[in-house]
């Protein structure tokens, strides 16, 4: 029973961070049809900015939203400068489909190198603002800590905000319309290119939150070569694909499935198998259900 509870808690905690990364990938995919590999770099950069802000402001609770805003601005800047330029200059032939994706790989390398140049290659540390020791009930200590609980609640709150924005506001309607049918949206008077940039901005904010929360909830250490951030990208991508790559609820569902499956493997079988299972899951989904679980037409709401 204790094992099962641990599995659920570990799974949900991991899922909350994967889901941020996954919705970030889905938003970029929906608005520009680009799988953005640089998202790992952008999240890492945001985490460094978070680190810098914590050092300067001295308060994590101010640094977190500030870093998210800066992450959004950086992401919007990338879309505005890099993606639009690419679209103009390599709009024809086979390269048109590949160029933006390869460009995001280039950008990933560039961001990591830039981080190394600015902050150096040695680890830097973000202090966790809350305790990472699990809650204790009587003589049992569960794996959920105050920090972990904050991460979970914060992500749930972000998801609620995102779903309200997408379902119940004019901006959300414009975002959905531009994603489903850019030409019709344009004919209806939506400034689709601006909406596209906005999609990237929201993705940037979600990615920034994912990066910072993963860091403080984990070891707290950051380095330009951080393996954790590459894995965050991979897990976010797997969750997005499981959820159908188009759907925001799908991305969250995909993250939950991934988080729980990996936690089960870790607890009941072996921690060493986690990555093998994660990548097998990705391949299995791509082979058996490439449209994901919520990727069908009916699931493409929100």
């Amino acid at each position, binding site marked *: 029973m204790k094992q099962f509870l641990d599995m659920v808690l570990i799974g949900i905690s991991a899922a909350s961070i994967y889901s941020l990364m996954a919705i970030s990938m889905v938003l970029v995919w929906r608005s520009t049809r680009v799988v953005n590999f640089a998202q790992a770099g952008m999240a890492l950069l945001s985490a460094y900015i978070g680190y810098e802000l914590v050092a300067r402001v001295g308060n994590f609770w101010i640094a977190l939203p500030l870093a998210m805003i800066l992450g959004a601005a950086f992401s919007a800047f990338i879309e505005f400068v890099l993606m639009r330029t690419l679209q103009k200059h390599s709009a024809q032939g086979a390269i048109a489909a590949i160029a933006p994706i390869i460009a995001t790989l280039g950008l990933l390398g560039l961001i990591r190198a830039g981080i190394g140049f600015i902050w150096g290659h040695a680890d830097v540390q973000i202090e966790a603002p809350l305790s990472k020791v699990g809650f204790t009930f009587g003589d049992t200590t569960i794996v959920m800590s105050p920090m972990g609980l904050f991460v979970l609640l914060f992500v749930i709150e972000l998801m609620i905000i995102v779903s309200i924005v997408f379902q119940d506001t004019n901006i959300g*309607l414009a975002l959905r319309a531009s994603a489903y049918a850019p030409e019709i949206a*344009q004919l*209806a008077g939506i400034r689709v290119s601006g909406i596209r940039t906005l999609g990237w901005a929201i993705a940037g904010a979600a990615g920034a939150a994912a990066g910072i929360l993963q860091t403080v909830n984990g070891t707290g250490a950051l380095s330009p070569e951080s393996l954790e951030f590459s894995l965050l990208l991979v897990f976010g991508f797997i969750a997005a694909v499981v959820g159908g790559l188009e759907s925001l609820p799908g991305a969250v569902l995909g993250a939950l499935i991934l988080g729980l499956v990996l936690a089960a493997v870790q607890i009941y079988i072996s921690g060493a198998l986690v990555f093998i299972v994660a990548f097998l899951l990705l391949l299995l989904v791509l082979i058996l259900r490439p449209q994901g679980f919520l990727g069908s037409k009916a699931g493409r709401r929100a």
Partner: protein
Amino acid sequence: MLKINNLTVAHGAIRAIDDISFSVEKGQLAAVIGSNGAGKTTLMRTLSGLKSAENGTATWLDHNLLHGKPEHHVRQGVSHVSEGKSVIAQLTVEENLDLGALWRRNRDEAWATKEEVFTLFPRLGERRKQLADTLSGGERQMLAIGRAYMSRPALLLLDEPSLGLAPLVIEQIFQSIRHIVDSMGVTVVLVEQNAMGALKIADSGVVLNLGTIAASGKASDLIADPAVRTAYLGF
């Protein structure tokens, strides 16, 4: 009025529209007919800003239609319903309509326009919370026209609204289009393969053939013209 002068539009090396000129008076319904590949859709996409022209001019009142994107033209009173029931299947009926008026500052007026659409097409009002995906072909076409109308156009460009619809539904859609012209003062350019049906409700007509104008004039004259009858009306 809508004035098109020496307009040329190319698809790569092919001239889809080759040096055409015609005009449509304000408050009139003009039918543009012709067979597949005559350049009808290209003409509409050029007028709404989806495609750029090689040469010539196209103006609506004082507004240059050959400059700027569709979202810009919509704000100048030019709306386009593209070919193939241009609705967004994943959005509800009401969301599709709201989309056409998102850019309008005055929400009260936008709301009033929506009520007008529901009066014009009561079936849309009954299905306002349904996904557009669940609508029949005719209802989708009503929704597409309704969405364009939500932008309060002065010039409405309709591309093949009868495509794939049953004769009875076509009749109904055509009557609604005529109503939009007569009661709401909208100028309409109606592109149709259903030449006879379109000419019957139109004030004037333009016959396109391989990118050039084969005939033009009053709709009633075109129906009576033996050459047009044999080539395009099929009798």
